[in-house]
């Protein structure tokens, strides 16, 4: 129903025949309520897609279906060459390739930042402890937390915790990163560092699917912005066009509500 998906970015490193994520007519019902009502979406390798839309529109459910945390009611899914709905295949193989960052971080509170990052590489990938620690140290540096490896989550600010969570997901060397409102639970002054980290990831060519209300990030970093409402993709397109001149009335109404003054994107400090 919506506009044709953007073609995959030109710097394809994976399977050139296939998008990293392919969603066809995806539907998800919770009891009688439809969270997803026929979604089609493709994400190419290296592409940064930002999902926007009012709360309850199905953005999070879509992300959770992509890595198998939720099972769709019907439709086709293809993620990194796997079908997350196929019960005969090992969902964990897919999840190793798909990193997920949650709104509320969900760091493991009984482990240090370093242990949070090394846990899965050691036990899922079978890395030696020293190798996993090396990887974790360089990731901590990458997210701007060099030297905080021994801190427990409770000793870190929200923004620092979220950056550890990003490092934890990156430690699995995923092909795709999913962000589910990564800055919504943060105090405003802590948002910038997290967005900066995500921008760095995008610059490095990571394929990303981001659910966010940060329109500045969408405008500056996204290759494509997708607007969902009532479980459907209403329209999608280039950020500049989507955010300043959307075709659909529903998109315009939504943007008017989320953008102060209703006259275009605001830049978050730390992003400039």
């Amino acid at each position, binding site marked *: 129903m919506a506009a044709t998906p953007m073609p995959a970015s030109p710097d394809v490193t994976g399977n050139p025949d296939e998008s990293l994520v392919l969603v066809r007519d995806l539907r998800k019902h919770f009891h009688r309520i439809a969270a997803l009502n026929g979604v089609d979406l493709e994400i190419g390798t290296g592409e940064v897609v930002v999902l926007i839309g009012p709360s309850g529109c199905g953005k999070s459910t879509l992300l959770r279906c992509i*890595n198998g*945390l939720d099972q769709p009611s019907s439709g086709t899914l293809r993620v990194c060459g796997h079908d997350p709905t196929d019960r005969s295949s090992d969902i*964990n*193989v897919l*999840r*190793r390739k*798909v*990193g*997920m960052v*949650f709104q*509320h971080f*969900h*760091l*493991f*509170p*009984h482990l240090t930042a370093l242990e949070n990052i090394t*846990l*899965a590489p050691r*036990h*899922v990938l079978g890395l030696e402890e020293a190798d996993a620690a090396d990887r974790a140290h360089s990731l901590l540096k990458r997210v701007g937390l060099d030297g905080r490896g021994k801190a*427990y989550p*409770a000793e870190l600010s929200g923004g620092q915790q979220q950056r550890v*969570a990003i490092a*934890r*997901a990156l430690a*699995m060397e995923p092909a795709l990163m999913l962000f589910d409102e990564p800055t919504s639970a943060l105090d405003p002054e802590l948002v910038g560092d997290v967005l900066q980290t995500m921008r760095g990831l995008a610059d490095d060519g990571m394929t990303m699917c981001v659910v966010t209300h940060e329109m500045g990030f969408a405008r500056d970093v996204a290759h494509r912005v997708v607007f969902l409402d009532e479980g459907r993709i209403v329209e999608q397109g280039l950020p500049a066009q989507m955010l300043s001149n959307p075709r659909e009335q529903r998109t315009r109404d939504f943007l008017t509500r989320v953008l102060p003054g209703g006259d275009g994107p605001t830049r978050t400090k730390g992003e400039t």
Partner: protein
Amino acid sequence: MALAASCAILAAGVAACECPASAAPEELVIGTDATYPPLEFLQAGRFEGFDIDLGSAVAREIGRPVRWVNSAFDGIFAALQAGKFDLVMSAVTITEDRRRSLDFSMPYYTAGQALACRKAGPRHEALARLDGRTVGIQINTTAKEVLRKRPAVRIREYNSIDLALLDLQNGGLDAVMTDSPVLRYMLHRGYSDLAMTGSLFTEEHYGIVARKGSDQLLRQVNRALIRLEERGEPARLHTKWFGEASLGEGARSRAETVRLIAPALAKAALVTIELTLGSLLLGLPVGLLMALLRLSHRKWLSAPAVVYIEVLRGTPLLVQLFAIYYVLPSVGLHLAQWPAALLAFTVNSSAYVAEIFRAGIRSLDVGQMEAARSLGMTYSMAMRLVILPQAVRRVLPPLTNEAIALLKDTSLVSVIALVELTREGQQLTGALAMPMLIWPMVGLCYLLLTLPLTRLTGVLERRWRL
């Protein structure tokens, strides 16, 4: 001891089994409740008393080596029915009720109910004088039958007779009624403010008890009793245990008593510790397994766990002990006291531990499991590495509670005749008649055992501070 019909009925409900648990068939195993001096009691770990001497003499006459097994009176007939021993010799009064489910030898001793009163107060010689008075008895004994004939007498029942005597001494009762030889012995050893009134109110005959159908064994026992009678053995034993000389030196000094009972309490405390630690070490993993099964989304895994937990939490531990030790033999599964106790406490505590773990796991944010799974961990890996380490920290205080409760619940094993702290306390108060000294010492032992548990929890909580 004229303990009641209820015991016999309970015992009768337990199917009889003809195969004794003892390995050596020629050994004669006799059960007794060694808290009843001077008939049967423990002195420095040895069985002593009139019944013990006579029973051993009977075994000698029959030509079989004797082994005495200590068993609380509540469970003694059930144990006999279950084949835990061949005979019971424990001052058992022959009654019509008991004859329905048990066989008795010829009477070997005649006793009666006697009254004790305070020396300073009025002496109640006749039943009629007790109208409107409060009389203490041991629960379910034949003293009750005597007192019931006077509806105006108020009866108060105690778990053991020394508690009734203590209450009488403190002024809480007007009199205490119990078997004459026991009352005489106890009053001599302690309770110097109390005195026995002269007359006996009943005539009761003690008999040696066997399972129904043990006719051949009972014939041998009766022949042995007759031969011993001809040689004057019972009369000699009577002088030894009921004569003036038997009463010996009377009450001991407190210091001497403490010296006497300390080793016995230490040994009993060891049993308590072993049983508690053993069932904790086994109950924790079993409980954890049950919690994980109950949390499973697969019905065929969770349903059996729900049944296991609810049945074990919903039935008294005492009943479970009974079932394992006395009922399982009827389906061919004989467990010795120690494994039976360990099994009962393990399964019982595992049900509580399971619910503690389940509550701990469910108290965690579902995001923890989702975060772990989103990193590619399997369910069991996420449980082991992420969920359980956090859940265990959270449930440490309730687990400590459970461990302390378990420690104190081990006192229930006296029904299957294992001697731990509480049972040892009963035996010592029975033998020494010094409850005011012994029970505080028993309490102190329990406190000394629970304190390290509490400390350990404190140390772990500090180390795991998040």
